């Protein structure tokens, strides 16, 4: 891909491109934009990309993140104190996107997007190299307007499934979600957990209704967990664990390097288990 053409191509589908009949495995890394600063986030994105992430999720800080546990809540409040706004996140995205091969996805609560204006938001996503949007408090029944606006600009809207979702909801979410489906591992909020529940049945149930790629998130924090998840899912999302690494290293000069190392280890966890995980 030549520089500057990212505006035209949505990278999410590339990342989940089918190999031997199955989508390739993806490592998806979440960080809160502006935590601990916009300048630091810029370096972090480059380092996380280099360390082998396939998709990078940039969290747009919100004052009342009801779907998030303590780690992401605190990072969000920290960023808000530094007046990080959606406009600032777009600026950051446009700077880093040409320098990375990862797909770039925004994760933000619906009110931030609504107040920005759905049409303007979709246009600015496209202009600044955002491939997709994840909105934790938006369900398919309410997501039509955003999807329409985003669709006009080639930006994908990714919806959620939860272990509580029944077949009716699985069908509805599968029909709406683009790029992949964000499958929550547990009924709960984001945050690291000592163990993951048995999610095989849940994944198998979803696969009966859709062949869209499935990415699992919430509670995944170690290479071991990642390997387990990717045995069944097409992508694994690591968020709070990364935030914790950042929190522990704030003020250190080699913050991006430390976080990069953490992501590299996650990456190796995938390769060592023999799943197709080679980065482009």
């Amino acid at each position, binding site marked *: 891909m030549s520089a500057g053409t990212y505006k035209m191509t949505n990278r999410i589908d590339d990342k989940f491109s089918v190999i031997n009949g199955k989508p390739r495995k993806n490592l998806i890394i979440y960080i809160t934009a502006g935590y601990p600063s916009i300048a630091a986030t810029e370096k972090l994105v480059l380092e996380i990309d280099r360390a082998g992430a396939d998709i990078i999720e940039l969290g747009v800080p919100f004052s009342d993140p*009801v779907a998030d546990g303590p780690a992401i809540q605190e990072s969000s409040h920290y960023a808000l104190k530094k007046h990080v*706004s959606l406009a600032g996140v777009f600026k950051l995205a446009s700077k880093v996107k040409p320098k990375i091969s990862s797909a770039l996805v925004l994760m933000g609560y619906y009110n931030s997007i609504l107040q920005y204006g759905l049409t303007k938001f979709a246009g600015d996503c496209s202009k600044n190299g955002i491939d997709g949007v994840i909105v934790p408090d938006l369900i398919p029944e309410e997501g039509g307007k955003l999807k329409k606006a985003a669709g006009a600009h080639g930006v994908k809207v990714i919806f959620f499934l939860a272990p*509580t979702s029944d077949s009716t909801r699985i069908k509805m979410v599968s029909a709406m979600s683009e790029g992949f489906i964000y499958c929550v591992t547990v009924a*709960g909020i984001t945050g690291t957990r000592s163990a993951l529940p048995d999610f095989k049945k849940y994944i198998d149930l979803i696969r009966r209704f859709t062949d869209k790629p499935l990415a699992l998130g919430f509670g995944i924090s170690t290479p071991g967990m990642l390997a387990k998840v990717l045995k069944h899912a097409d992508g694994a999302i690591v968020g709070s664990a990364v935030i914790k690494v950042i929190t522990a290293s704030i003020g250190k000069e080699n913050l991006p390097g430390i976080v990069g190392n953490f992501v590299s280890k996650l990456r190796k966890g995938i390769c060592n288990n023999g799943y197709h995980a080679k980065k482009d």
Partner: protein
Amino acid sequence: MLLPDKRGYFGDFGGRFLPETLVPALLELEAEYSRAKNDIKFIRELEFYRKNYIGRETPLYFAKRLTEYIGGPKIYLKREDLAHTGSHKINNAVGQALLALRMGKKRVIAETGAGQHGVATATVAAKFGLECDVFMGEEDCERQALNVCRMKLLGARVIPVGSGSRTLKDALNEAFRDWVATVRHTYYIFGTVAGPHPYPMMVRDFQSVIGNEARKQIISMEGRLPDYLIACVGGGSNSIGLFHRFYNDRKVSMIGVEAGGKGINSKLHSATLSCGRPGVLHGAYSYMLQDVNGQVVPTHSIAAGLDYPGVGPEHSFYKATGRAEYYAVTDTEALNAYHLLTRIEGIIPALESSHAIGYVIKNRRRFRKGEIIVLNLSGRGDKDVGRNI
């Protein structure tokens, strides 16, 4: 009667904005509620507890000395302060507890600001043998300490919330976070007419008993409908409870009184409908207090139960369509009203309800002789004694 549509919208306002994990529980609740409200057994049960446990109907009391003091309209007080536990919150808590029992849930959770909804929930949990956790902002735990004691005495666990502004908004966030993880066995007794569908509709229905009674009472006492309904608005449950039955009585004016805090130009207030604009908070599209980027802004009110940056979607609809008017009354005006009513009527009102009284005092020239006001005295003020006098 006016209903939200199938998707939970009152005109442009309402809906369901929250994590997917909770949607199945809300759909289940919606289905169970629609069965229950048409089930004669449920209706009779609710009727039984209203009469024998809550102590309904509550009086519609002609406040003679307040009327003389104001010197114009006749003022009637709907005495929700006399309901069991001391506020209107019990009307909703009993209804939802009966639903929780029907659904086989063993644990209930609630958010609370002033502690009145927390006490009501702890009360029904004790009565029906349910485990109960109440989320309450740390600041509110301090300023409504009496209610914290009452909840604990009733066997509930009070979980102080230290995040954000440490008030009602943050208690709601934590209650939602708990519920996402416990939804399979936990029922969330939501305390106001906000939140995702079906809560605004359901809480409204349970609180409408206030207006249903008041309408009959005023007709029997005065032979006609009132000219004004006045009630304080935080999330909006006592006011919708009074207003709703009168929706089609077009000649009855409705006035919602918000917390003006230190003044609506001071940024230290909770006057959501007066100063906010629509957005998504806590599960619904409704008016809210926010900055240009859609971040929720800090609020203030002397009344913990009004100290909230959101409001129920039905109120937003009433405002947008002009069916009700909304004004703000400051801390000082509310406090003066609190003292006045106590001294001249022998009724200590909650600081929340004092805002409604404060509006009448402040705007006495607006009302004419011979006009009739029904004012919702949503709760009693014992909880507030000692911290503001």
